[in-house]
């Protein structure tokens, strides 16, 4: 294995759900992404843009209609049950709502131990030690090991979810909005914890979030999704400081900033995101786009490299007008 090969590579993923009324929800439309070892990729977008569906396909919790997910070079869809079981050991997930993803009848200790039992990792004594080590790592006290989820605060529950995800020594963690249910004063604690553990254990992280502030702190690269497609991708600081896609620009401009002296003069983007059932023709962002031209209504812009390490799906990317619409 060489260091340059991606840990995870998703290619041309498509996932559509039938609504039961003969309609189709276009959740994910032709998405490709890759994550290198030790890298944190943030998947950003508004509700319904397909970011969680994408995360679930990467976790092999859902099968793509088209396309492939390769973990350490191996296609998940071609794996048998046993092979998939052992592959899952290296990909673990942290969920948004810790109370919904922890069994209320299990103690903290039992919750963290379960993956170790499941994968038969170590002897019973070693498992016990590992559980205590993990609880300590995420900042839970030894006396909290016997507690049940309802006896812990929201922040402590999320720490427990992180300990469980780390139990099998995964290479990649998919974190789906892991701090958005937490209060601000607790959020910072959990973000710092995730960053520390990632650096210490050389983890890769797919961080799914709608919070630009959090993403700017935690990620190396960022992929912006809109209606099932990645519209822009690149190194975090470059994308956030000089967005090339008008949606990214509008999204960034919409984030309220804790600076009362820098108020916006108007809402940056008009309209609502269209429904993923009836997608507009051409570029899905066209109905809200301030710089759309005729071409945008009949051709879907491909996600193409604009500069090295940077991809944008916009017919007008690179034109000077686009730079002007982005904020300074």
């Amino acid at each position, binding site marked *: 294995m060489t260091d340059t090969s991606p840990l995870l590579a998703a290619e041309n993923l498509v996932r559509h759900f039938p609504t039961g009324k003969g309609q189709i929800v276009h959740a994910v439309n032709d998405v490709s992404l890759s994550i290198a070892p030790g890298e944190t990729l943030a998947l950003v977008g508004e509700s319904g843009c397909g970011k969680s569906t994408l995360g679930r396909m990467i976790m092999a919790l859902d099968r793509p209609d088209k396309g492939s997910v390769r973990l350490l070079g191996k296609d998940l869809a071609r794996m048998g049950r046993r092979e998939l079981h052992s592959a899952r050991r290296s990909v673990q997930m942290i969920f948004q709502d810790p109370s919904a993803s922890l069994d209320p009848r299990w103690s903290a200790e039992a919750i963290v131990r379960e993956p170790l039992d499941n994968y038969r990792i170590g002897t019973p004594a070693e498992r016990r030690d590992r559980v205590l080590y993990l609880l300590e790592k995420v900042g839970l006290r030894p006396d909290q090991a016997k507690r049940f989820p309802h006896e812990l605060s929201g922040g402590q529950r999320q720490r427990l979810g992180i300990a469980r995800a780390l139990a099998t020594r995964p290479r990649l963690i998919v974190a789906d909005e892991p701090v958005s249910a937490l209060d601000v004063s607790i959020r910072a604690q959990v973000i710092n914890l995730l960053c520390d553990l990632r650096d210490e254990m050389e983890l890769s992280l797919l961080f799914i979030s709608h919070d630009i502030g959090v993403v*700017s702190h935690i990620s190396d690269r960022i992929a912006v999704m809109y209606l099932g497609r990645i519209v822009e991708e690149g190194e975090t600081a470059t994308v956030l400081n000089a967005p090339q896609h008008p949606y990214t620009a509008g999204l960034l401009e919409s984030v309220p900033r804790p600076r009362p002296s820098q108020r916006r003069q108007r809402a940056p983007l008009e309209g609502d995101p269209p429904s993923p059932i009836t997608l507009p023709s051409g570029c899905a962002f066209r109905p809200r786009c301030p710089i759309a031209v005729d071409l945008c209504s009949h051709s879907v812009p491909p996600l193409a490299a604009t500069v090295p390490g940077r991809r944008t799906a916009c017919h007008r990317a690179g034109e000077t007008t686009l730079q002007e619409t982005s904020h300074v």
Partner: protein
Amino acid sequence: MTAQQPFLSLRNLSVGFGPQGAIRAVRDVSFDLEAGKTLCLVGESGSGKSVTATSIMGLHKPGSAVVTADRLRLDGRDLLSCDEAQLSGLRGSLMAMIFQDPMSSLNPALTIGFQLREALQLHEKVSRKAADARVLEILQWVRIPDAARRMNAYPHQLSGGMRQRIMIAMALICRPRLLIADEPTTALDVTVQAQILWLLSELQREFGTAIIFITHDLGVVAEIADDVAVMYAGTLVERGSVHDIFERPSHGYTAGLLRATAEFVPGEESLGRLEEIPGNVPSFSMLPKGCSFVDRCRFAAPSCHERTPDWRQVAEGHDTRCDQPIDDARAASALRETMI
């Protein structure tokens, strides 16, 4: 009283639930709000923001809450001495409230037009035709596209942002002078949130409505507030103008919240580590002795464990409930410590 009375004035509002109101969810909250201004009530979940708001509106179930105050006056009326019938008359016409989830406040079986008309005709004697005209007008005010047709739509046929616009329309149709908005944009996407915030401030300019805006999002506060009141564990810890609170916070909790917020500022390098507020919010049954924030405060002195701090003025219109208010010199030295 020499000066004119403020439009809304609260002094030592306390709210208790349970037997004899033993669980004191809100303790000694005092603030004023001028007509046509926006006050943001900021705090984390369980800090008592919503309970404070529902107490002003008189929305507690009869017998469920014990509300006491030295003063609770709105537009010259003593709300505490109003009976349910009087309050009911004031709700909608003088004061109105919108909530986080519009779907739970709208009736799914009735059209938008019907529900808006009902809200209007409850308070004003107007004909059906005149009511429809007013409904159409307010729908246009809240920027519902194709408003005439949308009057016949049902709530589920509208997007989340549109539904929140309908709620705003319903709250404002009788031109109340106070609007309480309880996390109205929390369930919305940021691009839609920006539209709603902009709409609210536009309507405020037009109608002169005073707004109490409840939120946990400091970015939203910076965007819309004139004044800010910060709540922690059921009580108010700091109040002042939005510039005072963001630029010169004097309470340890306010300062901690501001520094713990992950923000992205274009062109600025993001700091590697966020500053944490250690520990957890205490529950009402286990409040520490003295200041409620004492166990998490980096500036706490021994005396802070002894007594509950009184209000003290740090500047004109800027008060803090802290015996060791942060001054610039002390904040700077504390910041140096964290750098090392």
